[in-house]
């Protein structure tokens, strides 16, 4: 127990920096409420389109990225920092490395969040899910993350406890991996201060994005929280973790396996078959370590199960671990190709995501806060009763969420794939499958509201708790400084190794880099592998601008652009997608959810007039549609002069625009706009339309799938 028994040297006294932890706790509570409010808002928008309020910055496509970013980086991010800074100091018996860095970290992170809130609703976005923030903010994130890392590793260097407890291993893996993920996925080429294009295109971009996207879940929403679990559950019940050995196996298996699992987001796409299989196999393997961790967490409670009933912190944490087990069972299941074929693009996926984010993250954060807040403010919790009410409301809301999305997802998927004996779709109109599940969207919105209310109850509970705290005390700790006496006489080489955090960090880095390398590098060489199809040409200047509107409005949050090679999809949409189609797509826009139909083959499906009316009010063309109106695109002028700059960046990224094409781009764009406007004018649309943004969006949609559609099905036309 006491490793200090035989220690020599001078005991030192010191304090912990709990002020910074308090700041992060308060930020967690505030941003948590914002993230949930946004979630509830977009849930209602899907149930009833009028909740888009016909205001550009309040529409679904703009708020959905804000919701996900707020939930992940603002709510969970601040919670992670609070929990890590609290436990890190105590596990190492050392104050944080630098109070100044802590403050820079805190305010820097809040600045990032505020910047996100000031850009995403205004359509300033890269269009890559969970990495939507534009390049200046990306740089800020990198800087602040480095500040965090210096503060974190500096504390390790200054520690008074030789051994690095397993929680810190998880933190180290988090810090290193998130840095790698963020930097690699955010490589982009600026067009202006608020606009950039991804360095990667098409299949490559998709692979890098989902390597990132999946590992953001793994290394932002899982590993740091597991580290917190390994600290706070033992603390809350005052007994050591059930099996420390299991925790080590848990750690290494997770770090090794998780990094490979990304391609399970891209099954049945044009991603190479072997990469898909790799993603699937590793995802199924993940089930083992995840459940090892769950068992370890729950078994730590053996003998003190009564506390689950009486102690809010224990109750929330036990529930969180249970949901972790559920979500990590469902995840591998969804990665199996045959299940994925049904579940992908449906509401089953948001259901799965929320059993993780609400069931695991929100619950664990609540558990940690119920432990932390009374300790930090040196008082008692205001009301256990409120905490229990919060618990039931949250659980109730979450169950409504999961069940409704599960039903909606499977219902819709079965309708999409239903075919009669003659090979015809039974529900050829996509809208039929939407109307069918709108009631489930209402149930989900009610469930989400219940979770939001539960959160507000917690805020109130903590507000009262903090208010009643009166005496300000500072605790002074004492421990020996590290010297030769802190190493056990017969320590093996391995133990010394474990005592050297830098080597450890390098090892975890190698583990994730090996996985990432094997997964990503071949696709970075994709140019050599993808068979070019000569019919596929870059977008025209006008279409390029229209594509940016598509990204800006977040159309990808509801529409996919990739047809899977399945009979029902080919019948519904058209030819299955080909990797060669996407080589000029910086960024790719395959999407991840089909709230609306796939658009990869939308070009030429309807006349311009159809789109004109549809964007003005989707319900004019499709009764019962839940797509928002985009009326502002009808009176926003098209900034023609900005087009050459965009093309020049694209040219640098390898899109074969000639200088001549760039020089004449403005005129070309105007000419193309005029042909569209002229056609519309025949139906009585005012001619001024040629100057408005809507023409560029129509031009883009009308281009989708056209080039590849002109290629005969037999690959006779292909050239290397």
């Amino acid at each position, binding site marked *: 127990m006491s490793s200090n028994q035989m220690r020599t040297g001078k005991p030192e006294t010191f304090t912990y920096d709990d002020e910074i932890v308090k700041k992060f706790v308060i930020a967690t509570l505030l941003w948590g409420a914002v993230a949930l409010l946004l979630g509830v808002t977009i849930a209602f928008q899907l149930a009833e389109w009028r909740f888009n309020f016909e205001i550009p910055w309040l529409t679904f496509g703009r708020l959905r990225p804000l919701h996900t970013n707020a939930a992940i980086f603002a709510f969970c991010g601040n919670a992670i920092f609070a929990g890590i800074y609290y436990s890190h100091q105590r596990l190492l018996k050392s104050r944080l490395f630098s109070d100044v860095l802590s403050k820079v970290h805190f305010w820097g992170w809040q600045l990032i969040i505020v910047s996100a809130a000031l850009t995403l609703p205004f359509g300033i976005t890269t269009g890559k899910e969970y990495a939507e923030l534009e390049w200046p903010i990306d740089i800020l994130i990198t800087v602040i993350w480095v500040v965090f890392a210096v503060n974190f590793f500096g504390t390790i260097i200054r520690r008074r406890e030789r051994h690095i407890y397993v929680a810190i291993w998880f933190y180290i893996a988090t810090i290193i991996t998130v840095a790698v993920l963020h930097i690699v996925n955010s490589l982009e080429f600026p067009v202006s201060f608020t606009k950039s294009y991804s360095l990667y295109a098409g299949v490559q971009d998709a692979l890098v994005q989902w390597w990132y996207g999946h590992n953001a879940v793994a290394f932002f929403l899982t590993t740091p929280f597991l580290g917190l679990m390994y600290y706070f559950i*033992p603390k809350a019940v005052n007994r050591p973790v059930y099996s420390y050995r299991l925790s080590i196996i848990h750690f290494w298996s997770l770090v090794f396996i998780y990094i490979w699992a990304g391609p399970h987001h891209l099954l049945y796409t044009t991603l190479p078959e072997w990469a898909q299989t*790799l993603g699937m196999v590793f995802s199924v393997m993940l089930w083992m370590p995840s459940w090892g961790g769950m068992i370890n967490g729950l078994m730590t409670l053996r003998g003190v199960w009564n506390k689950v009933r009486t102690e809010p912190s224990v109750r929330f944490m036990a529930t969180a671990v249970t949901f972790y087990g559920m979500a990590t069972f469902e995840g591998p299941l969804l990665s199996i190709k045959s299940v994925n074929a049904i579940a992908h693009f449906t509401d089953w996926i948001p259901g799965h995501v929320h059993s993780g984010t609400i069931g695991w993250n929100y619950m664990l954060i609540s558990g940690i806060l119920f432990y932390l807040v009374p300790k930090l403010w040196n008082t008692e919790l205001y009301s256990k009763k409120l905490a229990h009410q919060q618990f039931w409301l949250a659980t109730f809301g979450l169950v409504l969420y999961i069940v409704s999305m599960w039903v909606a997802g499977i219902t819709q998927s079965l309708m999409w794939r239903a075919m009669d004996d003659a090979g015809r779709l039974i529900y050829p109109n996509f809208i039929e499958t939407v109307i069918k599940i709108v009631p489930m969207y209402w149930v989900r919105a009610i469930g989400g509201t219940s979770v939001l209310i539960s959160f507000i109850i917690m805020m109130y509970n903590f507000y009262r708790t903090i208010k009643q705290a009166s005496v300000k005390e500072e605790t002074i700790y004492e421990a020996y400084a590290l010297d030769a006496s802190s190493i056990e006489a017969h320590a093996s080489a391995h133990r010394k190794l474990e005592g050297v955090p830098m080597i450890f960090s390098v090892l975890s880095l190698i583990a994730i880099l*090996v996985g990432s390398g094997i997964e990503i590098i071949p696709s970075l060489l994709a140019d050599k592998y993808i068979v070019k199809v000569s019919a596929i040409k870059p977008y025209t200047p006008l279409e390029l601008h229209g594509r940016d509107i598509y990204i800006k409005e977040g159309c990808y949050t509801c529409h996919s652009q990739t047809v899977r090679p399945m009979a029902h999809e080919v019948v519904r949409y058209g030819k299955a997608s080909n990797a060669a189609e996407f080589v000029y797509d910086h960024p790719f826009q395959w999407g991840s959810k089909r709230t609306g139909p796939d658009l990869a083959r939308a070009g030429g499906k309807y006349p311009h007039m159809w789109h004109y009316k549809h964007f003005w009010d989707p319900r004019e063309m499709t009764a019962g549609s839940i797509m928002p109106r985009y009326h502002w695109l009808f009176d926003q002028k098209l900034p023609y002069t900005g087009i050459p700059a965009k093309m020049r960046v694209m040219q640098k990224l390898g899109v074969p625009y000639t200088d001549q094409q760039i020089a004449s781009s403005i005129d070309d764009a105007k000419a193309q706009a005029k042909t569209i406007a002229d056609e519309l004018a025949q139906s009585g649309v005012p001619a001024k339309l040629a100057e408005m943004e809507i023409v560029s969006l129509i031009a883009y949609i009308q281009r989708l799938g056209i080039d590849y559609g002109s290629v005969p099905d037999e690959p006779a036309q292909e050239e290397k």
Partner: protein
Amino acid sequence: MKQQALQHFDMPWLPVSALILFVICFIIYFWWTYRSQNKNFFQQMAEIPLVDEVKHKRNLYE
């Protein structure tokens, strides 16, 4: 057609070597973790979070 593009991507040695690599690593750390020599050490490690070496409290208003 899709298959056409994919054939050029084919590199089965990659997942296989990945799998072998993973299995080797797993065996090594499993062996290390469950060696009986390390048992006491791990018990000691598990206690780390529970040892808060409190000295005394200071009232900041004093």
